């Protein structure tokens, strides 16, 4: 409760400062937008459906790219885990590749796939694939060995052993990597859309710039923050909380 009231005070003060600065008219509105201008942009964007369309397009790319990278990351992680040679060679390469911002893949993707959905999907996948793969690998290493032994002891082997034992057993260790993968994919997508113009939130942002409409730029930025925060807070936090409750890891008990 105290936390909440602190936050209310903080944000009210922030908005008040913004209002004061905007009222003072030190800068022209195309450089320093007013709060009511941003509010109008948000309302206009949602009422003419352009924001809704952008969100839908971006989320569709995100989901597709993310699901692809989770599936591929699992397969890659599994391959790394089951083969010492791959682990020592490809494993190292993947870790070093992770230091490459995934937007750097865009020129390559455009040359390979042209200005298509595939190119943007490629960038999104490259953004999160490595996180997921590395998370799988860490999960496998950190997971208590007893579960694998117990599973084999009870007759599980091959794919069922992975699916019913090793994967769920390593989930608490993988989850943070999945979350990180999502965050990276989200960043990659928005940057990709800003450069590579075809619908989506990133493009809306650039459109605001092209029209000198600072209010729209800020409105879209707020939207990107809100969506990122909501996915993190609603989807991943909920998953984490459920997992912890199930495993008995929560601090509450």
């Amino acid at each position, binding site marked *: 409760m105290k936390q909440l009231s602190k936050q209310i005070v903080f944000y009210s003060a922030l908005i008040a400062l913004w209002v004061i600065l905007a009222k003072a008219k030190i800068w022209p509105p195309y450089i320093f937008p007013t709060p009511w201008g941003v509010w109008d942009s948000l309302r206009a964007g949602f009422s003419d459906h352009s924001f809704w369309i952008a969100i839908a397009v971006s989320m569709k790319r995100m989901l597709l790219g993310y699901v692809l990278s989770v599936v591929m990351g699992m397969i890659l992680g599994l391959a790394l885990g089951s083969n010492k040679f791959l682990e020592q060679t490809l494993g190292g390469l993947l870790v070093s590749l992770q230091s490459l911002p995934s937007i750097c893949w865009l020129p390559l993707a455009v040359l390979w796939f042209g200005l298509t959905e595939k190119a943007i999907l490629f960038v999104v996948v490259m953004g999160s694939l490595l996180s997921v793969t590395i998370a799988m690998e860490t999960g496998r290493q950190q997971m208590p060995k007893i579960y694998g032994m117990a599973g084999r002891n009870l*007759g599980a082997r091959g794919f069922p052993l992975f699916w019913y034992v090793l994967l769920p057993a390593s989930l608490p260790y993988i989850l943070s990597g999945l979350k990180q993968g999502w965050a990276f994919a989200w960043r990659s997508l928005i940057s990709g859309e800003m450069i590579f113009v075809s619908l989506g939130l990133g493009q809306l942002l650039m459109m605001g710039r092209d029209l000198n409409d600072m209010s729209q730029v800020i409105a879209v930025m707020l939207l990107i923050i809100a969506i990122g925060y909501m996915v993190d807070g609603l989807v991943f936090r909920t998953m984490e909380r459920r997992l912890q409750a199930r495993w008995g890891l929560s601090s509450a008990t």
Partner: protein
Amino acid sequence: MNNNQSALPETTATDDPSMVSAGRPARAAGKLSFMRAPQQGDETPKLALEDICLSYKTTSGQPLVALDNIRLQVKPGEFLCIVGPSGCGKSTLLHLIAGLHQPTSGRVLVDGHRVQGPGTDRILIFQELGLFPWLTVKENVEFGMKMKGVAKARREEQVERYLRMVHLSQFKDSYTHQLSGGMRQRVALARALATEPDVLLMDEPFAALDAQTRDLLHDELERIWAETGRTIIFVTHNVREAVRLGDRVVVLTFRPGRVKREYVMDMPRPRHIEDSEVAGAAREILGALREEINKSLEEQYGHEAAI
């Protein structure tokens, strides 16, 4: 009739108890089969360990012989207890029987067939239990059957049966962290029994429990053993537990693990540690075990002195 059939039948690994750990296990096993023959006829043993050796390199690169020439035979339906000091390789022995590891040499035979890997005819209850925290009690118990491809209706039936057997029917939808230590132990037992193994391997299963819970579980385990007729190999460092439960108690030596002595327990059940016969047996086994514990302590101190 030989002298091993006396009132407290003790079969020593060697003729002379003073030579016990002198490395004559092969002879001990020969003696063992001779001893058992008149009791049970010549049926094939449920489980036979033939000259099991296991050695590995420690992290410092030193070769270490963990198990040396273990020979044991276990009759169908027998309750065998293995006691030994910590570090004698008794848990490792169970892992070998379960097929989770392979011996360096020697063979594990179940019904005369060589064990190549894990199989649901031998279920191990780990010391840490290894219950799956992401599954409910019911799903844990069901797991082995699911892997075996048992039909759903049959699985439900079995889960119900075994949960009733361990008195946990009301907790079937709980997660394991919501249960007490004794209850978790019983879930592990139900999960093992539900796969209907021929041989149940138990690795110090009650070590972490308080004395009252342990006593209760001894009674339950004995009842379930009588009810299901499973062969049980029970590893413990607790001599009282071993004499309370075992048809036979095997004492292993400290590093390398060898069979030091075997004791046949033919006192009537249920046994109480207060009974003079049971207490006498416990004393005797404890004496043998203590020699090994002392050896392990000496090694530890010697090691520290060397550093």
